[in-house]
């Protein structure tokens, strides 16, 4: 999965905003939105607030100017979380299953309204790095113990996504190398297919030797 697709999912998350405009309720297919009244906090999916810089043609753009994003994330709280994350062996709960994506949005588009934006950025990055290091550690022990099941509570989609294809492909390879060990898994050894494939690569006509033909055409 592409990280932007994970972000796409994150954009459904509801963030609280304080609008400085008014608009009636909007009846969307996926649920209702609004109504918006200046100064009254209202929940709104992130998507309506994302990418304001690129979507200049969206007529709803004016909605975005002067929006104040109310962030529930504070620097001291984050510091606590970082320390906890470093202390614990397991993954600790994060403020949101999409904390990375939300941080990116909030800091990139509303950093003027958030105090200590830089500090928050560093703290979140620290938390992320600690968690990814743990993830790799557990991936390694998962492989080396040849486990078949792992519980991954509190792991977020973005984190899973960075290692997904690598880990799943490796597990597949390991599984196949492991099934080599079980006798009886050697089914279909000398099937017509194999011989066929190989003769196709010969590049010259069939030799008149006794075995190739016999095996190829009489099967096994």
């Amino acid at each position, binding site marked *: 999965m592409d990280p932007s697709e994970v972000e796409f999912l994150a954009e459904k998350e509801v963030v609280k905003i304080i609008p400085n405009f008014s608009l009636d309720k909007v009846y969307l297919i996926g649920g209702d939105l609004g109504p918006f009244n200046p100064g009254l906090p209202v929940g709104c999916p992130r998507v309506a607030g994302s990418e304001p810089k690129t979507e200049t043609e969206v007529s709803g753009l004016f909605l975005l100017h002067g929006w104040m994003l109310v962030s529930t994330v504070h620097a001291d709280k984050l510091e606590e979380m970082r320390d906890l994350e470093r202390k614990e062996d397991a993954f600790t709960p994060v403020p949101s299953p999409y904390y990375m994506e939300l941080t990116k949005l909030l800091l990139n588009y509303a950093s003027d309204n958030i105090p200590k934006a830089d500090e928050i950025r560093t703290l979140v990055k620290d938390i992320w790095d600690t968690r990814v290091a743990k993830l790799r550690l557990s991936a390694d022990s998962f492989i080396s113990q040849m486990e078949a099941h792992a519980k991954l509570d509190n792991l977020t989609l973005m984190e899973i996504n960075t290692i997904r*294809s690598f880990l799943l492909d490796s597990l597949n390879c*390991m599984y196949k190398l492991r099934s080599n060990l079980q006798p009886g898994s050697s089914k279909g050894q*000398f099937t017509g297919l194999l011989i066929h494939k190989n003769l196709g690569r010969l590049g010259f006509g069939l030799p008149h*030797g006794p075995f190739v033909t016999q095996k190829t055409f009489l099967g096994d």
Partner: protein
Amino acid sequence: MDTQSYLPVQPGVGMEENFLSLDDILLSHERLPIRTECVFPRLGFLEKSSDSQDIPEGTKMELPLWLSKGLYERKRRVLSVELPKVYREGWRTVFNADPNVVDLHKMGPYYYGLGSQMLHFDSPENPEIGQTLLQTFIGRFRRTMDSSQNAYNEDTSALVERLDCLEKTLFKSGQSGLNGFQSWEKGQASQLTASSLVLNYRKRKMTDVQP
């Protein structure tokens, strides 16, 4: 999003090969040391060192994997296959001691694939070979993972040069995960780029024009 004009078929890795996998086709060309156990009539042209018409019994020669596999039969002894050095006991001891020191590209480059294929031939050492393959993979996993997940925006040729083909593929998928995340974090993901399909299409058009 990565779009590819076609999905390459993955190698079979285990004992079964995938018919349409390019890696497995290359793998099947690996040469194995064999000894003939009966006369091969009129196949003398395969043996470059003599000019007789037949290959006599007891000749030692090298044959590609696909041919050895096709000719090998348990009941009727047509040929016997010797283990390539890297799967023999001496090397197995090295692998069991520290799999990370071995240059699998030089020793392979299809170390795992060929090793699994060797299990098709009856040998008392088969269980140990299988075990070593598995343990080697597990032992080297951490290094493959770390190098593929940490090397961002740098020359990776030194990191992959000692990897087996299979590990190289894994390395690439680890890199794509890392690169995808990094470019998202920097905000590059929101920039639109031309699909590789379109680019390749244009290239193809050019060659059509210029004969």
